[in-house]
């Protein structure tokens, strides 16, 4: 068995829309190693979100095998899948998916509530730490409708980080964000990646993909391109540059 953290072999996912059968993923095989920063690209309908949901154990493939950390995911029951999602995977949704009428702190603490294996001594402190990490230390008691899109996304990222998972999967994390916030999120991702986290980010924006170390492009549920980005851009540097430009413009 290889050391790959994620190994998809001949994954297929079909949806039937009435008479028409949609092949969202068609015999897809790929591996992602520990510590990689992978950007998955593709036009809408290319199957990238479907792949992401399967990677995050939120959805099951029609056929094919998925190994996560050497574990055959298709052999796990619903309970074991839940525990896997809880402890090993941080998932960031495109639509944030925060609980309404619930403070940022409680939203971030939600995964810890269901963590029965590694009883966290102080979930509250852990959640605050995660929120500070994404720069929202001063928004603990805000509810989602009191936060901007970028802030909501950062709460969602904090929620993905709070259980300290080895991998973060983000589905269009910057889809609803302005360029400045996008850079902030990418800078955060790069920093996490440098600390050893595996990152898989789905995006349709080429400039976002340029920050990743590996580029995968899907089309019609099949692998179109899989190449290493020899020189990823540095989001922190770009962020500084953007700020300098802004202050220059003001001056």
């Amino acid at each position, binding site marked *: 068995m290889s050391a790959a953290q994620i190994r998809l072999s001949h994954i297929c996912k079909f949806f039937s829309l009435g008479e028409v059968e949609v092949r969202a993923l068609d015999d897809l095989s790929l591996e992602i190693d520990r510590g990689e920063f992978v950007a998955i690209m593709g036009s809408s309908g290319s199957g990238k979100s479907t792949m992401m*949901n399967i990677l*995050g154990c*939120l*959805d*099951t493939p029609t056929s094919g095998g998925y190994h996560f950390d050497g574990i055959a995911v298709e052999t796990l029951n*619903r*309970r074991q899948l*839940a*525990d*896997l*999602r*809880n*402890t090993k995977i941080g*998932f960031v*949704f495109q639509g944030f*998916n*925060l*609980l*309404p*009428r*619930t403070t940022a702190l*409680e939203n971030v603490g*939600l*995964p810890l*509530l*269901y*963590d*029965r294996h590694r009883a966290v001594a102080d979930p509250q402190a852990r959640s605050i730490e995660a929120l500070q990490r994404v720069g929202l230390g001063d928004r603990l008691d805000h509810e989602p409708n009191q936060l901007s899109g970028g802030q909501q996304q950062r709460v969602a990222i904090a*929620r993905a980080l709070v*259980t300290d998972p080895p991998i973060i999967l983000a589905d269009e994390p910057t889809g609803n964000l302005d360029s400045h916030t996008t850079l902030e999120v990418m800078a955060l991702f790069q920093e996490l990646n440098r600390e050893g986290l595996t990152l898989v980010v789905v995006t349709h924006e080429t400039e976002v993909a340029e920050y990743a170390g590996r580029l995968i492009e899907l089309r019609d549920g099949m692998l179109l391109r899989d190449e290493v980005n020899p020189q990823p851009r540095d989001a922190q540097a770009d962020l500084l540059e953007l700020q300098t430009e802004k202050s220059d413009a003001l001056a």
Partner: protein
Amino acid sequence: MRWHKLILVALKSIARNKMRSLLTMLGIIIGVASVITMVALGEGSQADIEGQVASLGTNLLMVRPGSVSSGGVSGGAGSRPSLTMDDVARLEKYATQLRWVSAEIRASGQVIAGSNNWSTTIKGVAPNYLSIRNYEMENGSFFTARESKMRAKVAVLGKTVADELFPDQDPVGARLRIRNVPFKVIGVMAEKGQSAMGNDQDDIIFAPDNTVLYRLSNGKTIHDISASAISSETMDAAKEELTALLRSEHRLAATAEDDFVIRDQTEIVAIATRVTGTLTLLLSSIAGVSLLVGGIGIMNIMLVSVTERTREIGIRLAVGARPLDVLAQFLIEAAILSLLGGLIGILSGLSAAWGVGKLLGVSAVVNPTVVLITVLFTGAVGVFFGFYPARKAANLNPIDALRYE
């Protein structure tokens, strides 16, 4: 996940969605309260009716003389003067199934007290007549066995008579004349009101049986015998015994017909039973409809919140909640809401029943069984419709639950 954590999650979720929680509880509250109010008032009126029937007399048996027929012409009930004080004495001596026996001798005439006079019925009865008929005294006392034996000239007045003859004074101790025989008033009966036939039951004077028999009547025949069976279950046995004793006293041949008639309250009781039966049916249907309406209310609000809750379940599943965690949370939530709503419903139902009962002059009787059934039913509806959709959602793939519209 530990239970106290789950309960905390459920409580937080209830507090977070105050409007939804309130509406859910409102359904349960209205369902429980309306059923409890309806049934309490209904059972109250049922008890009132039963009380009225019971006030007619305790297991009352009435013996009347039979009819005379000569030459094919029947004289009608009571036309044969067959009952005497000997009959009463025999019943008192030998009857085992009768608790109390009293003769009834009726006389009528003008009664004069001071400057007032009034024409009324005088009834000669035994001292135990009060018990047989469930009568009560308002003032003074009823006469004693000794006064009966002595043919004492004492009288107990019905309320109407007392008001007519002694409008401004306490009649007890006063004197009056019945058909020129002087009597002393020793008591006044409590008001009895109109009978079912519309007669004024208070327009009457009671006097000892022997007094009326010998001083106001012919000294021989009595009009009725009232008797009280030991219990309602032994009415038939009492009737048989009464018949046997009277037949032997009257020395009737085995082939001869009874020269008396025994009547009991079977018919009245049957009517009362029918009335209360109809009432019970009516109540049950009202309670049923109330429960149904309450149940539908709970169902609606529970189902309406499903969309949002399905997304919530998707989120919880996505961050690693086991399906069982989600189910337990929803079960606890539904149970807490149902319990709380049931409790408030009971309290408001009881106070509403009490208030309306006061207003309408009906007594409210709370039946614990009904309260229990109502709370269990509404609770079950609440838990089912809170839990069942959650169960469905918890069994979806997280991504399908998240996408649920």
